[in-house]
């Protein structure tokens, strides 16, 4: 694990918000702690394949962790926000008109989502009908166009 305890806690909070769904009753339904842990660990493994990205990602996590005051007016780190406020905060971060800030959020979101949707229970949500390493057969749609 390349992240210390503080970075793990902040990243876990971001992962949890990113993967939260709505349940049948309309309430927020966060992912299981097991899925959150898997994604954090997988991101850590991913970053070990780069020399500079571990440092860059620690800086990104710190940026995302420390700016709730500017987007939702709360003096707390991202891990200190309740789930609904965390989601609102991260959505505002992504939508900001300040290009570099929005881009910083995406730099975190892209590997996080790619990793998260390789977990089978998340992959099923996409509707994809097979595992990533499985094959399919042509013809595609019968040539009846």
């Amino acid at each position, binding site marked *: 694990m390349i992240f210390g305890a503080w970075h793990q806690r902040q990243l876990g909070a971001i992962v949890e918000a990113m993967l939260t769904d709505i349940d049948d009753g309309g309430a927020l339904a966060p992912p299981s702690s097991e899925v959150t842990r898997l994604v954090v660990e997988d991101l850590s493994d991913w970053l070990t394949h780069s020399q500079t990205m571990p440092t860059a990602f620690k800086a990104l996590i710190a940026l995302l962790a420390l700016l709730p005051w500017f987007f939702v007016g709360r003096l707390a780190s991202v891990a200190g926000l309740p789930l609904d406020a965390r989601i609102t905060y991260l959505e505002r971060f992504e939508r900001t008109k300040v290009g570099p800030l929005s881009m910083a959020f995406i730099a975190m979101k892209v590997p996080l*989502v790619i*990793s998260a949707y390789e977990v089978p229970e998340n992959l099923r949500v996409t509707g994809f009908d097979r595992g990533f390493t499985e094959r*399919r057969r042509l013809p*595609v749609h019968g040539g009846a166009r």
Partner: protein
Amino acid sequence: MTGEILHGRELSGPLEESADVVIVGSGAGGAVVAAQLAEDGKRVIVLEEGPHYTPEEVRAMTPSQVLRRMWRDAGMYAALGVGQTPVISLAMGRNVGGSSVHTGGVCFRIPSSVHHDWVKNHGLPELSEASLEAAYLDVERRVHVVEVQPHERSRSTQKFVDGARELGVEFKNLRRNTVDCEGNSRCNFGCPKGAKMSVDLSYLPGAIERGVRLVSDAQVERVRFDGTRATGVEGWLTGPPGHYGAKKHRFTIHAKVVVIACGTVHTPEVLQNSGVRSKHLGRHITLHPAFRMGGLFDEALDPWNGAMQSAYSDHYEREGITFVGMYPPVNVLSSGLPGVGPSHRAIVRKNRMIAVQGGMVHDEGGGVLHSSPLGGREPLLTYEMVPRDLARVRRAITLLGEMAFAAGAKAVIPPIFGLDPITSRSQLRALEASPPDARKIECMAFHPLGSAKMSNDPRRGVTDVWGAVYGARGLYVVDGSVLPTSIGVNSQVPIMSMATRLAWAMRDRWSRISA
């Protein structure tokens, strides 16, 4: 000499060998030169910085595993935008076979207009279309270039083709280097069928049969010289995956001819480390900035079934815009969809109904390489998009949206960070009229070119038109870095064809260049 692949990470001590030719890089440039010169009886050693994975190993990887193990900087390398320029994610392979393992298989020749520009405006009659004809034919035969048939298209691509037709825009069948493609739609991340004829499957096996020795995990630091004559290369055998850049043992390869084929981003570093000086080295880099547009339909398209890339349109070639069909793995696509938590989950659930189309612009050379301020292996690439190219990107996004709406899309998903789907043409046009910060555009590139460009004049380029580095003897560059300008189309076959032409020239002049 016995041909084989040596895993540098597994060697237990320093390596020192001799050959007629040492080639640095095993991608579309290096593999082709290796095969051509081996067929002429030369003793060839190929050095590849990245690891070697068998096709079976690649097929067993998920997309993120391919990214972290086989793409440069774990798939996170990007050109840093200067001014109103997006950050451009840059896909480059770091493995035996180089980026050819990670293409969508698209095979274009260099457009006639580009050849004409090189001959008329750059004073390069040696680079006419006719001069490359024999090389194109040789490459296309070896990598099995075939036309993708309409029935192989995904419904994703077909939606955009249908919409374009409504607007009077024609799409044509792409040509790709595949054998019995099943339409698994994940060419960039390792074909599960092994259908794509990347150089690790087309050129390298035959080259190794003819005695080529390929050393993976071997990072070249510099070219060795005796005066101005290149005499070999030296560098480090590196550690296993997960220890990116870890140096284990030194290696030295002695050779009569040295060929640098590290690609546009890394060739300049090797040349600079070796004392080659040119004001053009590491500059003028073009990228073909590319982007995708999503169209949300009210029917299940299962867009992942079909050839990942199957149709293209050059209708807007004069405006510097090319549209090329594409569909990324569903988790990669999901990473670019807007929203957080429930809003993101809601749109991810609609993936079966989202069609995707890609576009790219034929750009001016705004890229410059620098030493990384963070240290580490990868150089820093800055890129300043000229206003004309930024306008082209925005125009192309609008055109793709128009096509999606014409095909019946209920909404379009532009490549703008955090932007909700757009539900009307008027909103789409307003987006072009009042565009957001350019740094919010989701942009990627797959064809970096031009950092050691050819010229007939040493004051205007790094190599001559035969790839020979000015001011050095026995030192050649054979990769996308030598192309004089952007070409506006996928660069795989152009690089391979240029490499073939240069290898043939080396073969014909061998007694002179190796003396």
